[in-house]
């Protein structure tokens, strides 16, 4: 949830009440939380995993884990970060599961040899390729920070890692994306690693 999208105090109180009720075993309250968050969770999972099917499974698994584990949540105000942590863990599990089957698949692709008037689209393609080369951990930092607008301490909290690690991952990931954008134009042919 980005800073701009954080609920007002009144909305926050309602949400807090829902979390407390869910923690106490109220399925309707949890259902309301799930309905409120599912689009955002699905967007994050899709961005991180780059696969709609995997994202679907990850969100489903994350919400079920959240339902089961929410009684152990001690601070209801940290529900959002806690939920994103569960989502990223579920996404990682799904990614590993799928990667096992795709390990032998190699993709050969042709990159345009000269700049053209669709450079913006090319940039997006290169971002896609560069992003896919990142680990799930690094993708998660970028998505939580740049898409959700979480601060770096919030990202660190959501991922359960130290602030310094979150910053380090972010700079590493952005550096890798920059390198991908700068390098792609120089390569006539690129083969993705298996």
């Amino acid at each position: 949830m980005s800073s701009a999208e954080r609920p007002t105090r009144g909305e926050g109180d309602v949400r807090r009440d829902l979390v407390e009720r869910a923690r106490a075993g109220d399925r309707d309250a949890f259902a309301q939380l799930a309905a409120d968050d599912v689009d955002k969770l699905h967007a994050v999972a899709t961005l991180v995993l780059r696969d709609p099917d995997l994202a679907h499974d990850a969100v489903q698994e994350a919400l079920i884990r959240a339902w089961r584990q929410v009684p152990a949540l001690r601070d209801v105000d940290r529900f959002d970060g806690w939920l994103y942590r569960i989502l990223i863990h579920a996404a990682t599990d799904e990614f590993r599961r799928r990667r096992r089957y795709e390990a032998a698949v190699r993709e050969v692709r042709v990159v345009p040899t000269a700049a053209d008037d669709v450079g913006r689209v090319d940039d997006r393609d290169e971002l896609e390729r560069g992003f896919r080369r990142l680990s799930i951990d690094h993708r998660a930092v970028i998505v939580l920070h740049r898409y959700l607008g979480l601060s770096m301490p919030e990202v660190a909290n959501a991922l359960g890692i130290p602030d310094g690690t979150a910053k380090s991952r972010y700079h590493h990931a952005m550096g890798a994306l920059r390198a991908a954008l700068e390098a792609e134009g120089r390569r006539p042919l690129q083969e993705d690693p298996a």
Partner: protein
Amino acid sequence: MTDMADLERHVDDWLRVQAPARAPAPLLTNVLDRIAVIPQQRTVAARLSVTGDRLGRSGALRYVLLVALIVAAIVAALLFAGAPRPALMSDGWIAYRKADALLVVDPDAPRVRRVIGASHRADPIGAAPHGAALLLRPHPDAIPFWQDGTWWIGRGDSDPVLAIARLEIDSSGIRTIDELTALPGGTWGSFSPDGSRVAYATDGSDPGPYVIRVDGGEPRSVLGDECRRPGCGEPLAEWAAWSPRSSEIAWLDFWEDHPKFGHHAGVLSFVNADGTNLREAVVQLPGETGGLVWSPDGSRLALWIATGDEGVPAQIYVIDADGSGLRRLTNDGDSRWPTWSPDGSRIAFGRGELTALTGGDGSQMRYVEPGSRQLFTMAADGTDVRLIEGVHPDGPTAWIAAR
């Protein structure tokens, strides 16, 4: 492109374009359908208290288990009559739990996995020698949390109870018959050599190992109904295992204060199933212990030992059947839950990376995120470690002999 702000604008644009606006409608529907029947995982059954400001540093490690009651299960008819069924794989299968499902994986072909039944939220901890039954333990991994100035570790509502699930193996695969026999109070155990009985241990005030028939009946305390050991009832945790080659039962006690070995002592003891040949505290082990399992030939035992103050990280060890020759087999991560291959040549185990939580006083608790542990096998001497890729057991596993 070299400017960071420019790159971030590109990334922001790309993410905005790539993000789907809405989740598919069936996603939420599926989730709501499932949580309608899935119970929550309640915590506070176990408590870790500290006397110092850091868990286990100067204070005692104590936890109190709320003994949960489990509704009795129904014993199904054993369906093992008829012609012998062909074996599936020479090395058998490794059974494990993932959420509500009980699965098996072929360790030689990790892509070959099958759901064999409902897990009842319990992990397989041992298989009968003939592969016809599993012993299950509903002790889920849990995330510690800080409350009221102390660390707590949650456990499920249903522990401690062991349960026995029947298995059926034939040429078409392996599945559970899905009827359970509950062993209330049990925390860890294994089958007798003929598979007709189970030896199991309990936590806390109940002394020593128990034996019970797999089809039910009254459990019998191997050491007698009355506690006869000094300080009996004090052990924090017990783990029992029945030798697959004899009537010998080995068990581990982890003591708060052992009368002989002192503070936080793990000891290994032996006794025959009829209560004779008692050999208590044959050896003191260097830390918190658990996951005790005999090798198929009865010559060794595997277990995990955690030498750190916080009970982590644990590593896999083996020890000879006379209590000598303790040796460490693993060195990485937090490695637990050994299980022997049917021929005794390999040991499977779960390994996870530790995550740290910081408490209100700045103390830290480290744990393995539930479901993140990976399954490995290694040769019985600790060499030739192999990852079984894509398998993340929620707890202990059991290597099942194929018939």
